[in-house]
């Protein structure tokens, strides 16, 4: 796998094949092509991001990309961080075994959390139900039939106290949630939760997704117009720089954009443009890149092609490091090293869901070989329902197996130097940079939303994927090979009527027992801070401490900033 000598010295003219190139061409002509002629091709050898895959990669490919070890790879924990964001990677500090979980009300969910911790979960990200994510209290008309369905209902601090009852916030490596459109509120809820438990902010770590811009393109929980939403999200980051610099209050996502059809390279470009928008808001607010960049994480995603996934993580780290250094003048390692959170998926199928255990394990292994820092793994039934207890446990055990068995993490960046991986990494990097140039040409992250560019690339990609599946070009066992009838189990996102009742009762109790004058006064201050463009987190924290609800705070913003009118692009 390793290269014998530095190819920098070779660099032949492109029209004049080197010895390695001639050898490769000879092999194709004399050995491979005659063998291939006798076989009908099984499928087109093109990955989801559109790169054609050759039968064999050799030193000739490295020559063609002008591979330079020191410039392109360097060493783990050092610029440009291609081989890893931290010095020892999984050999010294293994990736954090994480779980994303939540359903019903806080009471039901707390029981599941305790079980997850029992089997070795190191980080829990709370899945919130859709009303909470969209800023509606459980008793709102829009919450009908949605309370506790795809996550746990959180209306106020009272629910958080119950959710973490018996689970000290510092007993896990990180705790957190997505809260993409309600970032400052969930940040305040976690800060207030620590106060309630008597744990100072520097003794635990909160991680949020808090990436509203991708919601408009891909995920759909947007509340406000994009510009004020992005500003509020960066308030959460700024507050952490000032008060809890060890927290990771923003994880910028490729995940949903790729899953929606954009492909991992264009998805990475869009996410990266979003990250740049947040960073520039923070710089404009007076923070430095060295303060801000370490608090931002990226959430890459590639669930179709194992090797592209590895290449994507390596290319992403390289682009991040170079951009932070060259564009923003970052000076510290922490600011230039891109930390990554990943969620292991494969092409999960609705039929024979147990097969998804194998699919998600391979998808996750690719991320681990690519050097991810925080790793989640989808439950085998996740495509169809809130994961049951067994599937949640299997997911965790799979992560533990990848972390500890087979020696996957014994050496750092084990595929570095592979002809194939390095060629792919450079090709994926080129695709991401092309995507970024396209986005820059239309004016950056906000026009990606406003012009419908994001939606357009997603729809086109989704249709292309569907056609590849329908035609068999993208093989999918039990779907287009050995097809089986999908079987969605009875547990699928059914909701829990009793949990909804408990939640509504608890919300009513909180609303009647709290200090009404204090709630009104703190909410008025949230409105003032929002109107004056101040950081909203201090005022939101006061409101949350007074048991103001998520819906009450979001209503202030809805009134002040208006609601988002979505793009018509379909």
């Amino acid at each position, binding site marked *: 796998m390793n290269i014998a000598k530095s190819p920098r010295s070779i660099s032949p003219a492109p029209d004049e094949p080197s010895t390695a190139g001639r050898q490769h061409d000879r092999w194709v002509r004399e050995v491979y092509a005659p063998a291939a002629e006798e076989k009908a091709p099984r499928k087109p050898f093109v990955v989801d991001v559109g790169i054609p895959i050759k039968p064999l990669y050799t030193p000739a490919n490295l020559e063609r990309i002008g591979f330079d070890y020191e410039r392109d790879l360097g060493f783990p924990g050092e610029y440009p961080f291609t081989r890893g964001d931290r010095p020892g990677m999984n050999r010294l500090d293994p990736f954090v075994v994480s779980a994303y979980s939540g359903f019903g009300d806080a009471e039901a969910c707390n029981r599941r959390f305790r079980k997850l911790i029992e089997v070795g979960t190191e980080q829990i990200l709370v899945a919130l139900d859709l009303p909470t994510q969209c800023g509606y209290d459980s008793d709102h008309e829009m919450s009908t039939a949605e309370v506790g369905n795809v996550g746990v209902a959180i209306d106020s601090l009272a629910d958080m106290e119950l959710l973490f009852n018996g689970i000290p916030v510092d007993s896990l490596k990180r705790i957190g949630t997505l809260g993409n459109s309600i970032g400052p509120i969930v940040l305040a809820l976690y800060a207030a939760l620590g106060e309630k438990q008597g744990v100072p902010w520097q003794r635990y770590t909160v991680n949020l997704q808090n990436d509203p811009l991708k919601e408009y393109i891909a995920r759909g929980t947007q509340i406000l*117009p994009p510009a004020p939403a992005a500003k509020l999200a960066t308030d959460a980051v700024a507050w952490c720089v000032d008060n809890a610099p060890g927290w990771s209050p923003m994880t910028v996502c490729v995940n949903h954009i790729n899953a929606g059809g954009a492909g991992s390279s264009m998805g990475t470009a869009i996410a990266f443009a979003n990250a740049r928008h947040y960073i520039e808001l923070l710089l404009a607010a007076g923070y430095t890149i060295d303060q801000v960049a370490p608090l931002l994480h990226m959430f890459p995603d590639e669930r179709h092609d194992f090797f592209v996934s590895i290449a994507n993580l390596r290319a992403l780290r390289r682009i991040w490091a170079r951009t932070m250094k060259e564009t923003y003048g970052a000076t510290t390692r922490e600011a230039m090293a891109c930390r990554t959170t990943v969620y292991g998926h494969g092409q999960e199928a609705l039929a024979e869901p147990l097969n998804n255990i194998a699919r998600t394990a391979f998808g996750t292994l690719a991320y681990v070989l690519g050097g991810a820092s925080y790793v989640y793994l989808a439950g085998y039934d996740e495509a169809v329902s809130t994961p049951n207890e067994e599937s949640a446990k299997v997911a965790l055990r799979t992560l533990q197996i990848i972390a500890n068995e087979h020696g996957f993490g014994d050496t750092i960046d084990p595929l570095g130097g592979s002809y194939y991986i390095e060629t792919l990494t450079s090709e994926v990097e080129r695709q991401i940079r092309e995507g970024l140039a396209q986005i820059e040409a*239309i*004016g950056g992250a906000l*026009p990606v939303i*406003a*012009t*419908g560019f994001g939606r357009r690339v997603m729809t086109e990609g989704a249709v292309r994927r569907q056609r590849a599946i329908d035609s068999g070009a993208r093989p999918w066992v039990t779907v287009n090979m050995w097809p089986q009838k999908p079987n969605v189990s009875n547990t699928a996102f059914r909701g829990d009527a009793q949990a909804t009742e408990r939640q509504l009762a608890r919300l009513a109790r909180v609303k009647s027992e709290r200090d009404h004058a204090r709630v009104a006064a703190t909410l008025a201050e949230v409105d003032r801070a929002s109107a004056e463009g101040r950081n909203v987190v201090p005022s939101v924290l006061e409101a949350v401490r007074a048991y103001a609800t998520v819906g009450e705070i979001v209503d202030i913003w809805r009134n002040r900033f*208006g*609601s988002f*009118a*979505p*793009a*018509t*692009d*379909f």
Partner: protein
Amino acid sequence: MEPGEIRRIARAISTVENQSAGCEALLEQAYRQTHWPNVIGITGPPGAGKSTLVDALVAHWARSGERIAVLAIDPSSPYSGGAVLGDRVRRSRSSGLDNVYFRSLSSRGHVGGLSDTATDLVAVLGLFGFRRVIVETVGAGQSDVEVHETADCTVVVTVPGLGDGIQAAKAGLMEIGDVFVVNKADLPGAEDTARTVERALAAAYTGSPGVNARPKHGQGSAEPAASPSPGLAALQLRHGDATRDDTTWVPPVLRTVASENAEIAMLADVVDRFIGWSDGAGRLAMRARERAYGQIVRALATLLLAPYVRVPGSNAIPAPVEQWVKDVAGGRASPAEAARALLDRSGA
């Protein structure tokens, strides 16, 4: 409007759209009404924010309680004839209002920015008591110019950042606008875009935006042009000739942010002022005559061609033409001879 009435309106529109049984009788009734609705055309390139603007305008006008209809027209696929109609997505302020009827239409293969039944649909809506109809067109640029035949006031919408200069100018939209709007005026470059439009207008108009009285004798250089270019003649027909008419209209260029109510109110006011001026100057009536003439000619053409036109999607040549096709293709007759003979035989 009661659900039952909305349903009747919707069904009537389908009847015309599909040209199904009862269509002709319905239109005979519709064209005999006295209250032709005021039609406001909203056009402009894709991405200009037309739908959001329409939503805001409708919400504004609906406050008076009058019935308003929106016909939002999107292109149909040239391959399948199908369409994805997404204009409802932008509806927020005008959504759920009782006096607003919104219909998404596909151009069903018709080129020109409108559905080929758009004017018929306006007539039908008039029958149901709508006094104001907003027609939002596909925004495909050049082909959008047809909107100005149906509309009493055409609003051309553009936004900054659609390319150097103004695409609308290239697309022929400059010639059809009664009012111009630079939408998303809070974006960088908006003022430049507005100035570009104003400069383009200054080349064809004299006076200040809005209604202008004819300059008194001795003032200005109002020499009648010997023979204005066809483009200028069309503008003069629509907006008046400063050398002859008592009043003329110079299209204003408004800057709007569709989310700002004050700016929307101003746009609504300008549109109404234009319609009021057109009416007072006799231009609405003149336009109604032009529209009627255009429609009659097209109806006549359709009627005359009916026996000879292919069924869409079919490759078969209609029987009456078959022999002539062979003769022309075989070098035994000219197309004009064929047409003349077919027309003579039909007794027309």
